[in-house]
């Protein structure tokens, strides 16, 4: 990550910490609404890579605030939601790892049991897939100057992949936590409930799968591969 993005993330963490109790005020005050506005128009001049990084933090710290809506327009809300979901899934995994390392049963930490290890490996694969989808979508959006139409395939694929990960990630996170994860006091629901909500927001699985499936069918069997490679080769040239 670039130094500028590191700084942006540090700012986001500090501002979102305030916003967690104070609401949108600090976020608007800190100028996050200008993240995508060009520098010569007094904006921050950020790209979708920056948005992805900031929204992953928002997905953990302020999942109930309208940060994505502040930063991006309606057509990019599905893409923004992927980033929120990636962040929340990363946090669900982190909480789960922390918990199984601490909680002891049968005389050892839960994380020492192979069944628990294998569950968390499955979960980690899903989280990694969604992080990759969010990053690849960001690369595409930045290569096409945030034109949602030119990134339609990637938006559909990434949102669908993120949606499909929700079931596995929330189920395993809650399972390894036991009863404590089902309490209001414990932080897990702060990411798992938003994940359940985001799965249905801005297009559920069937919506995106049918859209993507029809698009892919239009390319034809061999055309699907040709199209996928052409789109990624292009954005490498643009970088």
């Amino acid at each position, binding site marked *: 990550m670039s130094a500028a993005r590191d700084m942006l993330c540090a700012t986001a963490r500090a501002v979102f910490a305030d916003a967690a109790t104070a609401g949108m005020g600090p976020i608007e005050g800190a100028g996050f609404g200008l993240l995508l506005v060009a520098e010569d128009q007094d904006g921050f001049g950020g790209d979708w890579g920056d948005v992805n990084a900031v929204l992953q933090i928002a997905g953990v710290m302020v999942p109930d605030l309208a940060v994505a809506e502040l930063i991006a327009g309606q057509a990019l809300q599905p893409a923004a939601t992927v980033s929120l979901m990636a962040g929340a899934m990363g946090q669900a995994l982190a909480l789960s790892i922390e918990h199984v390392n601490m909680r002891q049963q049968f005389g050892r930490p839960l994380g020492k049991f192979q069944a628990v290890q294998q569950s968390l490996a499955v979960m*980690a694969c899903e989280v990694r897939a969604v992080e990759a989808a969010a990053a690849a979508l960001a690369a595409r959006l930045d290569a096409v100057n945030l034109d949602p139409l030119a990134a339609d395939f990637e938006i559909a694929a990434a949102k669908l992949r993120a949606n499909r990960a929700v079931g596995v990630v929330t189920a395993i996170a809650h399972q390894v936590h036991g009863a404590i994860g089902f309490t209001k006091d414990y932080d897990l629901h702060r990411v798992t409930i938003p994940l359940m909500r985001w799965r249905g927001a801005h297009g559920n*699985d069937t919506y995106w799968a049918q859209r993507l499936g029809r698009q892919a069918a239009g390319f034809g069997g061999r055309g699907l591969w040709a199209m996928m490679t052409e789109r990624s*080769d292009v954005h490498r040239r643009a970088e």
Partner: protein
Amino acid sequence: MQGFALYPFDPPGDIAALRADLRRWLADNQPRGDVVARANCWASFDPDFSRALGAAGYIGMTLPARYGGGDRHPLERYVVIEELLAAGAPVGAHWIADRQTGPLILRYGSEDQRQRYLPGIAAGELYACIGLSEPGAGSDLAAVRTTARETAEGWRINGQKIWTTGAHFSHIMLALVRSEEDSERNAGLSQLLIDLDTPGITVHPIIDMAGHHDFNEVFFDDVLVPNGALVGERGQGWKQVTAELGLERSGPERYLSSHALLVALVDAAGPDPDGEMATLIGELAAEMWTLRQLSMSTAAKLAAGDDPMVEASVVKELGNAFEQDMPRRVQAIVDCGWDDPDDLAKLLRALLVASPSFSLRGGTREVIRGIIARGLGLR
């Protein structure tokens, strides 16, 4: 392993041109043949095709030119192999030599070994097999018992390998053997490069459940190979094998070997599929797109000199699941008989039968998940 970004996949040169050249070459040179050979195509053996591919410069691409290689960047090679796999080209003869044995010889081999083997590998004429598994050493690879004793005349090898893919057509085996007497587990192991025409070696076919002869048992009965057969450092076999497995597990073959089925499905569905079919194609396309991002990032990390053991395992785990899931889901919604003669039915049957092996070969699902769990700090 949390929150890591995608490694930028940034090969030098004009990648679109590299792809276009290869696609043209394939249009002229890929055998039309049986559609089933296009599925699981890195198990499809076709020495004529391998030789032609080598002559065209698409094998041993990353090896130095002085050994017959192409001096190309590893990510240029990645682009070439993803194209070959997506096209279902029959790359099985040279696959292992190109993917792992060649690079291992370059990294750990002696000058002699490099000169002797690498030009043949790059030409697509010299084939290799992987001698790891034994009857008592499957997931538990550190249990290998095949011994090699150093004598004045050379290494004397006794024991047995099993499940050795391609041993019946390969020229060489890179074998993991116990070189140190009374050693245990992963200490005292070495890698030997064994010419398979050496006296005392017997190769027995094992026919798989699809009726194919891909893997074998290989017996070593007092086999004498030169002292120069040792690859790398004596006793460091475990470390070297770990590097080899990194190459074995990180490639696009872990999600692209069944691509022929997706191609046939999309073609059979036509341009205006109904809702259920569109949903299936969409879900498969999304998974494949995601896996491609993960695979490219892993390749880029490997090319940058980092060790992507955990990332490679994520690609293998998700890729195996994708490729095992795909034929089952296709069968669930497509109405075709087991023996129907059309492409889709033939591919479907071939992949339903082949797919149980996907999460066994190259490390079982449970072993791979164990590696990921270690990456999470749980073991």
